């Protein structure tokens, strides 16, 4: 079987494109811009989805909070003993944490307390628990965002927390905390539970909330309802509840993305419609002449195919590359702001690189074949006519 690709046809196609410089250039630019916009949107949503997913996955199965008069209250540590008696609970840990408002920079830090020998409820905390010096009395690990803010305010080696009674608590910075996700660790400070209790003035017998680990996911709902029965004054939040609320925020934001998506897709199809609705008389004439000098119909179609393929594939590649650079190197300025409605500190998170072949394929099939079809179909219509009819 001889090679199907005819070099001369490709050469002719390139020349034909170059002949209509401005037209080809314009189409390439518009296509590239469209693909760039579409793929950037997809990349950002994918990355944020991934980030949220991994945040959600690292969440504990059940969180128990005490609620008094509709507001969150410190829970009694002894509740752990009762929760542990429920069959199916594999561990329960009292968390001591809270938000510390740093007035000079106008940002909130999340301070998380850990215990040296306790089971850590998050993988990222296990490493910190190994490295953190519990004996010296005051040492902490801080997230990258916190480090930046502190350094800006000339806190290089330690930080002074203001306790509720107005006195200062000096804590040494002993390292940087790297969580599983940027979203999770950026604003976090990790230190011993005693220190957190001191900074927030939480009693020894109280904790912010209790996290419960359940080995078998099927049992989460049953166990949650049992805890609720034991402690009617608590709010029992399961992993699924959290997933839903995260998903809600995400869905709300992706509505804006959808709008952008629809607009760009609409533009694209207008271009396609314009192309498909007919050829200029000049193009028709060209096909007629080609046929007159002996080209067969399939030669003409092949040539048109190459033309369409070159333009659309080139636009596709450059659009994707531009989008990758825009999203992952420059962190999607402007577009990213749609998604980040947190405090100042939170916005600085970087989008994790997620390579999703499905998205690329989706964009490819939305652009390249449709554009090729839009060039071939009208050409085919003219090519099947008699040459003299077209030229006339």
């Amino acid at each position: 079987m001889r090679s199907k690709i005819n070099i001369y046809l490709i050469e002719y196609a390139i020349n034909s494109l170059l002949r209509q410089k401005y037209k080809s250039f314009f189409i390439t630019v518009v296509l590239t811009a469209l693909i760039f916009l579409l793929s950037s949107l997809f990349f950002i949503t994918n990355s944020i989805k991934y980030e949220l997913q991994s945040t959600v996955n690292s969440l504990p199965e059940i969180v128990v909070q005490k609620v008094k008069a509709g507001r969150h209250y410190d829970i009694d540590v002894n509740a752990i003993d009762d929760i542990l008696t429920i069959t199916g609970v594999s561990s329960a840990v009292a968390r001591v944490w809270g938000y510390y408002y740093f007035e000079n920079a106008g940002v909130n830090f999340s301070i998380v307390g850990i215990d040296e020998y306790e089971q850590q409820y998050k993988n990222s905390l296990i490493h910190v628990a190994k490295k953190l010096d519990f004996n010296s009395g005051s040492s902490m690990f801080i997230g990258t965002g916190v480090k930046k803010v502190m350094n800006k305010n000339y806190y290089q080696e330690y930080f002074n927390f203001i306790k509720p009674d107005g006195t200062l608590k000096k804590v040494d910075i002993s390292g940087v905390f790297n969580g599983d996700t940027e979203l999770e660790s950026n604003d976090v400070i990790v230190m011993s539970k005693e220190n957190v209790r001191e900074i927030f003035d939480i009693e020894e017998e109280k904790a912010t909330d209790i996290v419960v680990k359940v080995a078998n996911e099927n049992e989460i709902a049953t166990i949650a309802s049992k805890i609720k029965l034991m402690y009617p004054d608590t709010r029992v939040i399961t992993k699924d509840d959290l997933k839903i609320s995260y998903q809600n925020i995400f869905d709300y934001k992706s509505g804006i993305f959808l709008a952008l998506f629809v607009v760009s897709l609409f533009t694209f199809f207008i271009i396609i419609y314009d192309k498909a609705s007919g050829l200029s008389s000049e193009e028709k004439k060209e096909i007629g002449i080609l046929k007159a000098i002996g080209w067969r119909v399939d030669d003409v179609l092949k040539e048109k195919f190459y033309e369409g393929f070159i333009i659309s594939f080139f636009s596709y590649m450059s659009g994707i590359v531009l989008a990758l650079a825009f999203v992952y190197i420059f962190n999607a300025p402007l577009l990213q702001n749609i998604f980040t409605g947190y405090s100042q500190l939170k916005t600085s998170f970087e989008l994790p690189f997620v390579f999703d072949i499905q998205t690329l394929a989706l964009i490819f099939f939305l652009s390249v074949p449709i554009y090729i079809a839009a060039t071939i179909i009208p050409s085919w219509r003219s090519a099947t006519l008699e040459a003299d009819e077209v030229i006339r």
Partner: protein
Amino acid sequence: MLKKSITIFAISLVFAITNLQAIGFTKSATIKPELFQEGAQKEWCPVCGMNLEAFYKTSHLSKIHNHKLRQYCSMRCLIVDMQEHDINIDEIEVVDALTQKFIKASSAFYVVGSDVKGTMSKVSKLAFAQKEAADDFNIEHGGEVVDFKTALKIAKESLSSDVAMVDNKKSKQVYPMGKKIFEKKCTKEIDINAYNQINELKADIKDKNLCSELKESELQALSLYLWEVKKYGDLKNSSDTINVSRDEKCPVCGMFVYKYPKWAAQIFYKESHLSFDGVKDMMKYYFEHKENISKMLVSDYYSQKAIDAKEAYYVIGSDVYGPMGDELIPFKSENEAKTFSMDHKGLKVLRFKDIKAKEVHKLDE
């Protein structure tokens, strides 16, 4: 005269109540506690190893072999000790929760089931020398005023569930914590068998600096781990779930087993093994081929760990479905199986040998 004394009584009563409310009730000693045992171990309960000062107001005192004094953190430990040693009930003493002095238990008034948390028990039992004091406390904190014998009876009845509660906490929280502390802080050799009681071990760890400095709660966790686990081996590795490779199919239904790790079950022969996506399919296979089996494993529903199929308890007829519909759901302990059966409308709890082929096949109908 009478009027005056009544007013004084009323005022003192009001004062006492407000006073109680103001400070809140604590079980730990507010005065210097009296410790009766000999040696450095006197600070701790000989049965459970807990700090006596922290649970002073539930503390009991007994004489074993008519001379040796033993001081417990609670009535629960006293009862545990009563099962082992010959203890004369009339000689038992208890701390008066009001005056914090030791009194004869047999003449004391116990407030059982108040809102004060029990020591090593779900129900607290606080003793008072005076009936009035017990009644006052009863009004303030609820519960019921009973005599010593009744309190003892209540404690005896709840012993097994109290033991279960404490064991739960120990295995889920205290032992792993103790193990971590042991590995990090203890460098010297500790000969656990050299001690008769846990409080002797605690005293030695503290006084002879066998491990670096510890807080009381850390010391307790460490001692419990050494005393109740390390003495008899070590903690089992917690990640021993059933391992299924990606190409293993259930020989009964033909589905890939790795997709349903929660339900995996295995039959082992000398050299090979078969994996099933549920106990039901495993049993179907087992009834047909009973020869040469070396061991059978099923996944415990609650912990997801691999357990011996022949030792497990199975719940039949529950509303929980496996990958092949209705299932026999395996549990490590009978208690867990019963709890599950109640939660999920199970029909009955079976042992392995009681599972009948007919019942298994009926599950598919």
